[in-house]
């Protein structure tokens, strides 16, 4: 199958205080994990505007991850709850655009959870490999000019 060779592009928005440090730990501890994720550090998971997620998808991401501190641990108290509310509503809306729920993931990863981060990356990559490329074209390349 053509999908054998498909390497998903994943974008991960990681909060500075927990998840980014967790990912860093995975790195310094030399854990190996799927290299498909491009990490963007944000101050808090609550800083991720839904527009960022849409932008990531339209620019070619096959999956988007938001990762923040565990509930109760957010550096700004409420940020990750906001991320949770947005994630659930945005997931429902993305489905209406034909984007499967599995492509948009929200996780809690603490600064100590390098292993968890490793597992998420591997699992997410596998899952998106099965789903295949997203192929959003924004209405650009159809028969309009034909």
């Amino acid at each position: 199958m053509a999908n054998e060779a498909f390497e998903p592009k994943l974008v991960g928005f990681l909060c500075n205080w927990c998840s980014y440090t967790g990912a860093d730990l995975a790195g310094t501890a030399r854990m190996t994990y799927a290299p498909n994720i491009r990490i963007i550090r944000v101050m808090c998971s609550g800083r991720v505007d839904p527009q960022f997620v849409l932008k990531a998808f339209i620019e070619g991401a096959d999956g988007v991850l938001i990762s923040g501190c565990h509930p109760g641990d957010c550096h700004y108290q409420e940020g990750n709850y906001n991320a949770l509310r947005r994630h659930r509503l945005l997931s429902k809306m993305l489905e209406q655009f034909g984007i499967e729920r599995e492509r948009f993931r929200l996780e809690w990863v603490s600064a100590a959870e390098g292993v968890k981060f490793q597992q998420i990356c591997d699992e997410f990559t596998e899952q998106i490999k099965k789903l295949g490329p997203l192929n959003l074209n924004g209405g650009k390349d159809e028969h309009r000019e034909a």
Partner: protein
Amino acid sequence: MSTEKPKVAFYWCASCGGCEEAVIDLAEDILKVVEAVDIVFWPVALDFKKKDVEAMKDGSIAVSFINGAVRLSEQEEMVKLLRQKSGLVVAFGSCSHLGGIPGLGNFWNKETIFRRAYLTTPSTDNPDGTVPLEKTEVDGKELTLPRFYDTVYTLDQVIDVDYYLPGCAPPPDLIMNALQAILEGKLPPKGAVLSPNKSLCDDCKRNESKPEKLTIKEIKRPWEVELDPEKCFLAQGVICMGPATRTGCGERCIEANMPCRGCFGPTDQVIDQGAKFLSSLASILDTDDEKEIEKIVDTIVDPAGTFYRFSLPSSIFRRRRMEDIK
């Protein structure tokens, strides 16, 4: 003899006719307009043809007001012609500015729209299953129809646009202000939306009724509640697009005790009106509990259609994923 009044054109693409009505609704002011300008093209009211426009010198029309979204090859052809002949092009109304209601067609494609419209609606009576074709042979002659695109486009996705007059339809005062600014050459920088750059909530009388910390436990549709005529709609659990919508309409819907549906589009700071509204709505859902959140989200029947009611083609995605449509 009055010589050399600025020439003006009006044109319509994928629209409902309401924008033409908005020009007529200028009432007595339309006479001022007619006095100040020469209307050289206006298919709904005057009998000029495409060839008349073709015969004009490039750039000789001072301004073309174009309403409607672009979804047919014919519309694309006409707006490109008008662009070439005009000094300024103003996208007139929500459909031309953002895609508007016809833009909701971007949740489908040509095939599914044709199937629905010509074959499967309960009121369709089409035993031969005839659908429009681009080319048909009749008595040895070939008849042609414009091409119907899979995607609806905003005007500025097809031609260069100088200004935007927002609204479904644009209100008379904004139209007159725009005309005056054009006639006096007192125009804002190119690309401006000709309505104040702040949110509808900023001007809404009901804003004061918003509680200190606005939260909602359940989303209701307007017909499910007896709407309080004084209280902020969001505080009543009814979706109001005010926070993500540009002001300037005179709060017409609010005044009629209906929530804003977003026809003015977003302010300059926002790219994607739907995503912005989603963000503000999510943040007022009154719970931190995962299961509770999911329950409230379930009460929002059609988030995409509601948040992008007027702006789908201008959104970041522009349309639904093609391969998802069957």
